[in-house]
């Protein structure tokens, strides 16, 4: 285990402080070169921030759609609960890539989403908001964020359902006995108790989204590339291993920090899903 996980990481850190013996060469020598880090941060800083921003917006949207869904499933699912939960997972049994390609069909210039929006008369208001660019959705930032939101949604819903299910119904009865109305019960009892699950959902949505490259590649334009695309380019096209390693370490440290900081507060059971 340690071998599988720590060895690649150690090799990565070592490479991030190395120098290539010559350009495009796979041979690198460990020289303790910290400048790799400052160079990639200067060159890829904007892309890094864009990735974090895209992932942040997608996570927020997942929360806004996912919380009511999870709430409805756990409170009003009744005997349909297992089926409803199953339906959340089912889309993810088809290939990730094929699903993303299906989104390109849906969002295409002559596609159904734009047709629906123009029928509703929403194209020009959305254009003013910058969500539609020159009558297109495909190849915009909105499409990439939409794709990330789509992929994150189940990972938001499932942990939330787990932690909503854990709430002792006696607490809700007690709240009702004390004359708390529905809204107040939600604010004072349900919401605080669901926070650990929400945090787990946020992590499970944000971290993969920040490292994603598929959505940006297929749904975004050249101006919406994310850090994953940069890493792929550095390694597979430019053969700049030390730079890629440094960038990888930066991403890893940022996201692990996020995880470690929240580990004490989140609902660990909900990480593995219901």
């Amino acid at each position, binding site marked *: 285990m340690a071998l599988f996980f720590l060895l690649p990481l150690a*090799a990565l850190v070592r490479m991030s402080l190395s120098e290539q013996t010559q350009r495009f060469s796979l041979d690198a020598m460990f020289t303790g070169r910290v400048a790799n880090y400052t160079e990639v941060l200067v060159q890829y800083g904007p892309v890094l921030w864009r990735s974090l921003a895209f992932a942040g917006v997608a996570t927020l949207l997942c929360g806004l759609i996912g919380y009511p869904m999870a709430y409805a499933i756990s409170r009003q699912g009744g005997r349909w609960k297992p089926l409803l939960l199953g339906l959340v997972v089912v*889309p993810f049994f088809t290939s990730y890539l094929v699903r993303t390609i299906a989104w390109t069909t849906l969002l295409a210039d002559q596609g159904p989403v734009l047709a629906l929006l123009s029928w509703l008369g929403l194209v020009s208001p959305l254009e003013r908001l910058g969500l539609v660019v020159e009558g297109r959705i495909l190849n915009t930032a909105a499409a990439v964020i939409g794709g990330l939101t789509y992929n994150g949604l189940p990972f938001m819903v499932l942990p939330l359902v787990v932690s909503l299910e854990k709430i002792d119904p006696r607490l809700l009865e007690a709240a009702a006995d004390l004359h708390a109305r529905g809204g107040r019960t939600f604010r004072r009892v349900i919401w605080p108790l669901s926070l650990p699950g929400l945090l787990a959902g946020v992590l499970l949505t944000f971290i993969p989204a920040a490292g994603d490259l598929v959505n940006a590649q297929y749904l975004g334009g050249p101006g919406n590339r994310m850090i994953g695309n940069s890493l792929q380019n550095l390694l597979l096209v430019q053969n700049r291993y030390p730079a890629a390693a440094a960038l990888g370490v930066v991403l890893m440290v940022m996201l692990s920090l996020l995880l470690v900081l929240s580990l004490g507060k989140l609902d660990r059971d909900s990480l593995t899903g219901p």
Partner: protein
Amino acid sequence: MSRLVLRCCLLLGYGLLFAPIAVIVLFSFNDPAGRFNLVWRQPTAANWLDPLSDPGLTGAFITSLLLALAASAVATVLGSLMAYALVRYRCRGERVVNLLLVLLLTTPEVVMGVSLLNLFVQLGVQRGLGTLLVSHSLFCLSFVALTVKARLGGIDWNLEDAAMDLGARPGRVFRLITLPRILPGVLAAALLSFSLSLDDVIVSSFTAGEAVTFPLYIAGAFQREISPQIHVLATMVLVASVAMLAAGSLRQLGVSSRFRAPASFARGSGSSG
């Protein structure tokens, strides 16, 4: 929140989740005008009658199936053993291992891909099916270990001790007592691993070398051709996994109604399921 608003949210959410699925199934019946099955023209059953007409795609699909089978087998065995060891024997490094498992689960795929490719290059390992197998087993491992661990939490270990007191050898105890109790969790983890491996694009794109899996083939062909057979095969995978999921849940229902007896036990083992 009123019932109606919640219902609307549910509808919206499921609509979003299933929109691309509907497109995939629908377009598996499309007769595209050119090489790209991205715009609807007219319905046909030809793609379904000839799902293997694209030899490159079929080869990649078979590679993916075999790879997923091997990777999920490796990950399931190693991950289950790890979970068993973590739950059953308190050891000193337990907390560290737990933390590592969670870290591994939440490491972004792209970091895993970069670090593995870097390791393989530094070790001078030829990239191909072997490196794909190692990397897929690795990212499935933490899912298996954590899933199985969650299930193991609800097991009454006194049964194992009781069996041993009655003179059963460890192998027999494992076969008759432990295995039947952890099997549902292990099977679920194996299925999850299989679909994770079959689906993987990001890690594979770094560690595949010359090897071509189903998603990698599609990614490579995207600029030249999107054949309807892609949609047919994706639909087949969907139908097969839904069938397995349904069979699994039906079986679980059957099992739970037969062995309902001690309520506390059922609640304990059901807490994670």
